[in-house]
């Protein structure tokens, strides 16, 4: 499983060596595209040529397709690779300054290093100016420290913004990129002036466009459903279900819910409206199992922001909860558990008082795990005694009594992901 760095397959020396090779490829790509010369580079912005858009958008297209094809077949772990986090307004201001700087200065940081090496004297001055700019930034940052750290949205992807899977985004970005290529070709042909080196649109451009779109559509086509993703992880996850390591007892759930100082426990009720209205736990979130996928990004975000988050799925019995558990595990939500015996067992354990009051009655046709084993005089929802097991004067005695009556199964795992990276 890639990236290799996350499995420490290369060692420090191997990684350094790989970085050197990557840097060489990077430099060749920039140099042969014409970016060791500020006049050629800025030619894009006067349509003397269209080299920046051609080269950079091709790079994005190629890398994007390869990355997400690798993710789709389970070769690369998208959660582990570096994806730039979003700081909205600092990003916009920084982007604007970079747009001004590239025209005045004639380079960007990467191309200035390439051009300095190729003995372009203006690039040496760009590098010097760049160091001064960096110095000014670090010295003045305290004046706008608040702005610099504002509008932080974390690791937001286009998939999160448009609520579609990555295969769809790859295909639509490919369409946008190919359209940009044609617009760029058209503009270069229209605005070219006397000093323009001829850069005719290649004859193979239409075929290349179609191939690019087909390949991107291919990524969409092979993008795995949650079932396929479950199959990829079933070998390691199915045994947890079989050995009942993820089914926590009602005692453990009640105890865990009361550990509010050290844990954030999210109870997800995946049953239909009817069952939910009859009876549900007071602090549970109602998300029917067929709507669960839509909530995955939110859960992953919660887990990222608060690593000590435990998700507990409840249904009447265990069948629906097990199905929901597989979905969340396949979608890589961390620390997911389900309620052992479902709410039926919960009521059996905590419903004594409600039954004594006649609000809940034992049903005769018990045993079908999809249905509640109980009758309810009214659909009171969470207004039952058993629906709230949070510590309060009424419950303290119960909590104290049950806190040793189970074998704890919840083990909170820390977040996995890149420790750092990007332009740090």
């Amino acid at each position, binding site marked *: 499983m890639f*990236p290799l*760095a996350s499995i420490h397959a290369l060692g420090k020396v191997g*990684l350094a060596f790989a*970085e050197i090779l*990557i*840097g*060489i*490829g*990077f*430099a*060749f790509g920039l140099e*042969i595209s014409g970016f060791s010369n*500020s006049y050629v580079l800025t030619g894009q*912005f*006067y349509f003397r*040529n269209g080299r920046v858009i051609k*080269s*950079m958008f091709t*790079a*994005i297209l*190629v*890398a*994007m397709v*390869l*990355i997400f094809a690798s993710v789709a077949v389970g070769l690369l772990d998208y959660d582990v690779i570096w994806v*730039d*986090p*979003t700081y909205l307004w600092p990003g*916009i201001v920084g982007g604007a300054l*970079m*747009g*001004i700087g*590239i025209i*005045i*200065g*004639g*380079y*960007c*940081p*990467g191309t200035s*290093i*390439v051009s300095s*090496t*190729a003995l*372009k*004297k203006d*690039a040496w*001055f760009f590098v010097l*100016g760049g*160091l001064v700019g*960096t*110095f000014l*930034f*670090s010295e003045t940052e*305290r004046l706008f420290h608040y702005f610099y750290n504002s509008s932080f949205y974390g690791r937001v*992807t286009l998939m999160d*913004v448009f609520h579609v899977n990555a295969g769809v985004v790859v295909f639509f970005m490919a369409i946008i990129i190919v359209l940009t290529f044609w617009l760029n070709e058209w503009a270069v042909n229209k605005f070219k002036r006397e000093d323009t080196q001829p850069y005719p649109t290649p004859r193979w451009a239409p075929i290349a466009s179609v191939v690019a779109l087909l390949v991107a559509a291919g990524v969409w086509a092979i993008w795995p459903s949650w079932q396929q993703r479950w199959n990829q992880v079933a070998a390691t996850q199915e045994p947890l279900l079989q050995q009942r390591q993820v089914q926590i007892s009602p005692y453990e759930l009640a105890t865990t819910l009361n550990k509010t100082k050290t844990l954030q426990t999210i109870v997800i009720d995946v049953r239909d409206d009817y069952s939910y209205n009859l009876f549900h736990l007071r602090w549970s979130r109602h998300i029917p199992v067929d709507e669960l996928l839509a909530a995955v990004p939110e859960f992953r975000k919660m887990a990222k922001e608060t690593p000590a988050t435990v998700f507990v799925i409840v249904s009447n019995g265990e069948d629906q909860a097990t199905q929901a558990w597989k979905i969340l595990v396949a979608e890589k939500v961390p620390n997911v558990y389900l309620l052992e015996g479902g709410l039926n067992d919960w009521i059996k354990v905590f419903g004594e008082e409600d039954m004594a009051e006649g609000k809940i009655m034992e049903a005769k046709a018990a045993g079908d795990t999809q249905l509640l084993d109980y009758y309810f005089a009214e659909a009171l929802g969470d207004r039952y005694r058993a629906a709230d097991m949070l510590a309060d004067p009424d419950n303290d005695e119960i909590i104290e009594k049950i806190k040793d009556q189970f074998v704890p199964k919840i083990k909170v795992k820390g977040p996995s992901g*890149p420790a750092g990276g990007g*332009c*740090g």
Partner: protein
Amino acid sequence: MAEKKSWFQKLIDRPRKPYANPYVGGVLLGLSLFFSLLITANGLGASAIFARTNGFLVNLVAPHHVDRVPQLIKVAGGAKNPFNNWITWEVLGVILGAFASSVLFGRFKPETPRGPHLSEKGRWVMAFFGGMIFLFGARMARGCTSGQVLSGGSTLSAGSWLIGLVMFAFAFATAAVVRKLWS
């Protein structure tokens, strides 16, 4: 009698070859970026080496000052070596690659590319201030053309696409305003 040329002069005098088709250059960039993510989990970067060099220099001149500046303490100070980071190796590769490519294709020449209406010295001044503005912006945006637009773009980061769009829009607008600079 032929004048005896130094090895350095020979490198500089190699005949200039035309640039490649930029789509081909783009494929090479894309492959480098993909393998970078596949192997190291990092994308490509460039502006970080400026930040680390800055940290190194400030630490050299005023080591106590480093401890008071949050931007600097991230990369330097104490036993921290500012260059102990993947970016150093990548940039070393970039320098090697740029040298090889420019020599190979006869573009390794001391010269100052510039627009027809700008003197050589004028171009240097512009490059200096442009670099200053760019890197200030790159620090603000937490990444430059490589770290945000290329790497963040291909990994579909929402913020990176926004930064890229703003950057292109401002570049085209600025180009129209300072037309004399380049044409």
